[in-house]
């Protein structure tokens, strides 16, 4: 069977089976391996993508349910070659260690800030609660999201001033 979806702004039509996981479709058929598989059971958040605006564990999505969906992966965040403020913040806060959880963490952080530009630490913890980091880098990951919120505020105020 065939499905059509938009991934990082690009429309793609692909052959799938009901048991093709969205994760495999993105990683293998589309070669977007920034999306990771950590557990395959929705427990770790490494496979997080933003599907139709919501955080989604792509390992738990049958490909046909993604028919017609709009999907953003980590690769789509800096598609124009310019890093998103949240990506910059992760680098600057030293939040990146082994990096395997980072694509999911960055997307969870982005989704959170899209909805809530002024999060407190508790909000960030809740927003990122579906993502596990085993290098135990949580403190700096939370710092990074808070830093990104500050950056976005500054950017926003500059834009408003223009």
């Amino acid at each position, binding site marked *: 069977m065939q499905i059509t979806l938009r991934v990082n702004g690009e429309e793609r039509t692909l052959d799938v089976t009901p048991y093709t996981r969205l994760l495999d479709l993105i990683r293998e058929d589309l070669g977007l391996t920034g999306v*990771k*598989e950590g557990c395959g059971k929705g427990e770790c958040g490494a496979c997080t993508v933003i599907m139709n605006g919501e955080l989604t564990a792509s390992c738990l999505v049958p490909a046909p349910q993604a028919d017609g969906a709009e999907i953003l992966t980590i690769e789509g965040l800096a598609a124009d070659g310019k890093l998103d403020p949240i990506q910059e913040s992760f680098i600057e806060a030293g939040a990146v260690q082994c990096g395997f959880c980072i694509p999911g963490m960055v997307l969870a952080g982005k989704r959170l800030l899209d909805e809530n530009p002024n999060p407190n630490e508790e909000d960030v913890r809740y927003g990122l609660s579906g993502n596990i980091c*085993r290098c135990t880098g949580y403190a700096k990951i939370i710092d990074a999201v808070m830093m990104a919120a500050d950056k976005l505020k500054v950017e926003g105020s500059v834009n408003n001033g223009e």
Partner: protein
Amino acid sequence: MANNKYDVKDYYCKHTTRCTVEGEKKSKRFVGRNVLKADAEDKVTGEAVYPNDITFEDTLYLKVKRAVHPHAFLKDIDISEAKKVKGVVDIITAEDIPEVRKFGLIIRDQPVLVGIGEKMRYMGDALAVVVAENKEAAIKARDLIKVKVEKLEIITNPFRAMEDDAPDIHPDGNILITHNLDRGDVEAAFAESDIIVEKKYQTQFIDQLPMQNEAGTAFYDEKKGIVNIWAATQWLHDTQADIAQSLRLAKGQVRIIQPTIGGAFGKKEDVSVHIHLAIAAIRTGRPVKFTYTREESMITQSKRHPITIYNKTGVSKDGYLKAWETKFIGDTGAYASSGPAVVHKGMYHATGPYDVANIRGISHAVYTNNTYCGAMRGFGTTQGAFAYESQMDILAEKLEMDPAQFRLQNVYHIGSSTPNGQQLNHSVNAEETIKRVMELSGWKGGQKE
């Protein structure tokens, strides 16, 4: 590449860290500066290449049929149905690779594939490798492999393993190794002690659980006779040597390329996908890829040792450690891995940062049918810390002393020597650390409220 000359500083700058501010690049000083990680940008954009991210044209996929019982002789393995699955290219069993030798980090006791008449010793032992055009076919074929076994007693407890009538998991018996430690006159020191506390402590299995499961890709360059393996390992050259001896290749014929690693924490010290990948690559002549599932990673690869620790400690009534006797029994599981070194190190750190003149210890790593245990952050000392810190608290209570004060008067200082006789000549910060903790935590002497 081979002719490329680069100096170490350049390498350091490019590959390990990147200077944050323009102009600082010339600086040789990094300490005290905020330095950004060189690979962070690749990691936040999804660009970094981890072992499972590598794909070549025409890649084949591997799945491994694993043991069906934790302790059993393999009597028969039937791959006939599995071979019929569309897309299956090769199914490798032990009889296909008679020349392949066992592997292991310290002791080479792990079979690459368990053959008929041989034993599976834990649920992670590999019985057959399925190579197929796609993962789906490999999974289906793996699930169609039929196995007959003769079951043996399953030993999950190291104390059972040490009993005389327990079946031997390995030919040389179940006690893999024994280490001894003896310093001073322990008997006399116990006789002089005012209080003696004797306790037993038990720790549990812990999976290191790096975010990325074991994974790799391999390709055999037939012209050069070199097998290229892209897979994570913490001991690049040891892994290379182990694979080479196992496959009876020269070391130069095994090239390991280390992609970005998604965490390891000790778990990736052991060989995992490497040898199966190499064999499949050589036999098929095509690129092959193998990724463990999380479950497979948990069942198959190393754990932190559960250690049973006996501590007997004598103190004077003014709160000075006089004598310490310890025993470490580590459940090393089905194979040795780093086990001999872990129980060794654990025992030598049995008193942690506390100075004891008279100490005696014995430690064993014992084979069982559990998943094998190896390295994990701390390498035996973590288990010991749970035991000695608990012991110190119990002693302090018996002495009716402030546990912090009791610790302070027993810690190492410059000039102290550790149980194995190492002289500590610099960077001995135990006292300072404890005082700082007392200060930061607002320590009030540990009185019960």
